[in-house]
């Protein structure tokens, strides 16, 4: 049978099947290298080299947002999205890897830590700090995982629409015959569980490397094919310049507003001739086929505040897990150096596609039939609409595989890190007094990974239609950012105390909860809450991401409370800051 003879959606399905089969194959291959110990299962015996580390860290850091979300946000807010998210991330992520990652890896190797909480309990000499941090980290990570599973299920359903019309019926005509949501999510999470089960952290690193290569290639290929279909990159940008020029900058000018009104009138005249003055006068009306977007302005304060979001990577449990797999401190050098370039390679093409989508017409048809201000507008499907308009099933299947790669690339490490936290920070710490054998830890870890996968899948099915989960995931990044002062001070400030740590967590999370509840009461918890907050004393249109004030107040609370509480003891100082003259002086002064 020729590819052209396949029913719609089946070619895409086969591309997805091949991709998932490749992941299982990697799991099988990695199991051949598996040494059968918990140390190998959780941190790959700390044997991952520089190239694998850079690919796996990048694959874990980038979610589906890097492909779908970046295009959608650029379609809404314009090219400025790249600066506020991608180039900030390039600078700040690399800083976190350099300042936090390398140091945590060294301490992890020196003292045998396998989770963040083990480090914090030891550094602040407080078992109860783990009891506070554990639920906080699980609470922040779970919505993040659920969003990924929802994205995977939706992507599989959309890509395979029409594949089995006699087998799977859907209430939505566009999804008739597609792989149902429950099955798509079951298969994708099941595949992730299988290769994590088979090879643990090594399988995760290998799979992430493959997934990074896939979504980098998919992003570039999609960019070129779409540019070609729109008459070339120059023609595509010129079309935006004529219809929605504000999409090419961060701020709208009065000229942009006047042009919008003019283009809107022309569009109405062209699409609703009966109501237009031109038709009434008997003249033929000609105007844009695409409805213009109302110009938007991103304030400089909002643009600046987005720099606080990427601080969250310093406290991602799954990233900590991957850092520990590094063979040496030197392995981090390539990751620190190449990370900004890799972010650019995936974000720049996707942002350009999103900007072009605001004025795109293919084969005489408007590609995106809604504008950002419409109630039914869904920015996340803009890239999918652009690809669908190409009428190229291979590109559509590759895009589905690329988006799945971005989603599953983060999910595997998240499953593993949660399994590790349950094993080490709860069972081993509380039930076995940190004396579990290696075999017990391996078995417990594997069982908990199964339970975490199952719980996340069931929660996904239960919460699929609950809108607050989408808004909540955005706030989770702010929560991780608010923990940045804690990890930074634990590594670099000898005077940081356990009471300072408690105060920092309480202040950061307290402010975040206040912002979330206030926004929920104002806009309704079932609506998608705008992740921007207003600062007292500033004009109403000046807003920032919540991560900025949350991080600042967490830092202030940590410093103030640490300064008025008893400093850490000499043994702790020697353990974590050994060899520095300042440490010796400080310890001498304290005693």
């Amino acid at each position: 049978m020729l590819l052209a003879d396949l029913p719609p959606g089946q070619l895409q399905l086969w591309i997805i099947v091949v991709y998932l089969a490749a992941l299982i194959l990697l799991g099988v291959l990695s199991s051949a290298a598996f040494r059968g110990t918990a140390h190998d299962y959780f941190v790959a015996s700390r044997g991952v080299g520089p190239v694998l580390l850079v690919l796996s860290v990048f694959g874990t850091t980038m979610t589906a947002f890097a492909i779908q979300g970046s295009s959608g946000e650029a379609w809404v807010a314009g090219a400025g999205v790249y600066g506020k998210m991608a180039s900030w991330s390039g600078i700040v992520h690399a800083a976190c890897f350099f300042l936090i990652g390398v140091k945590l890896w060294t301490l992890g190797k020196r003292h045998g830590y396998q989770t963040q909480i083990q480090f914090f309990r030891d550094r602040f000499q407080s078992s109860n700090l783990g009891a506070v941090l554990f639920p906080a980290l699980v609470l922040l990570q779970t919505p993040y995982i659920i969003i990924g599973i929802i994205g995977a299920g939706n992507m599989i359903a959309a890509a395979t629409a029409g594949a089995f019309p006699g087998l799977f019926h859907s209430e939505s005509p566009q999804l008739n015959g597609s792989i149902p949501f429950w099955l798509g999510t079951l298969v994708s999470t099941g595949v992730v569980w299988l290769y994590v089960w088979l090879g643990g952290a090594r399988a995760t690193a290998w799979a992430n490397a493959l997934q990074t290569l896939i979504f980098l290639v998919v992003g570039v290929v999609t960019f070129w094919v779409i540019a070609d279909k729109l008459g070339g990159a120059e023609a595509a940008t010129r079309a935006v310049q004529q219809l929605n020029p504000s999409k090419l900058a961060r701020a709208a000018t009065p000229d942009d507003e006047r042009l919008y009104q003019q283009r809107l009138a022309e569009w109405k005249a062209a699409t609703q001739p009966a109501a237009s003055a031109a038709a009434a006068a008997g003249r033929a009306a000609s105007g844009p086929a695409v409805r213009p977007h109302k110009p938007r302005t991103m304030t400089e304060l909002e643009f600046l505040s987005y720099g606080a979001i990427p601080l969250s990577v310093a406290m991602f449990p799954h990233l900590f897990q991957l850092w520990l797999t590094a063979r040496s401190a030197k392995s981090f050098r390539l990751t620190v150096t190449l990370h900004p370039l890799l972010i650019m390679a995936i974000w720049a093409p996707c942002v350009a596609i999103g900007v072009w989508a605001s004025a795109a017409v293919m084969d005489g048809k408007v590609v995106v039939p809604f504008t950002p201000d419409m109630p039914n507008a869904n920015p996340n499907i803009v890239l999918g609409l652009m690809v669908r308009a190409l009428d190229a099933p291979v590109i559509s299947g590759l895009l589905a595989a690329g988006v799945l790669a971005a989603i599953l690339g983060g999910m595997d490490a998240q499953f593993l890190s949660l399994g590790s936290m349950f094993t080490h920070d709860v069972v081993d710490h509380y039930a076995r007094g940190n004396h579990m054998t290696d075999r017990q830890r391996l078995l417990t870890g594997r069982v908990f990974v199964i339970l975490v996968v199952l719980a996340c899948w069931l929660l996904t099915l239960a919460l699929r239609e609950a809108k607050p989960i989408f808004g909540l995931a955005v706030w989770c990044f702010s929560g991780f950012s608010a923990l940045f002062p804690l990890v930074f001070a634990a590594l670099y400030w000898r005077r940081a105390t356990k009471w300072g740590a408690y105060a920092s967590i309480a202040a950061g999370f307290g402010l975040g909860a206040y912002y979330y509840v206030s926004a929920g009461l104002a806009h309704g918890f079932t609506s998608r809450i705008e992740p921007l907050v207003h600062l007292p004393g500033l004009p109403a249109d000046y807003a920032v991401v919540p991560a900025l004030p949350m991080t600042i107040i967490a830092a202030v609370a940590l410093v103030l409370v640490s300064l008025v509480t008893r400093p850490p003891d000499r043994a702790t100082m020697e353990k974590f800051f050994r060899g520095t003259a300042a440490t010796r002086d400080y310890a001498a002064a304290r005693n």
Partner: protein
Amino acid sequence: MRFVVFVLLALLAIAHQDFWWRSDHRTLVLGFLPVSLAYHVGISVAATVLWGLACAFCWPRELESDQPFASRRESGDPR
């Protein structure tokens, strides 16, 4: 050199705030890239170069000489 690299990184973070092009939608680089987007692609490339320099000149070499921790737990030796 360490000082120079850290100053350059701080300058890069400041240069990120390109308010001077915030309303410029007319200037296109290579005929298709809005100038602010092209500038931020340049920021990403500059970040790669500067973090590469940081790895070369500011790397915490004392961490590389750290002795590996070889506990029984890590080697998988059951207790």
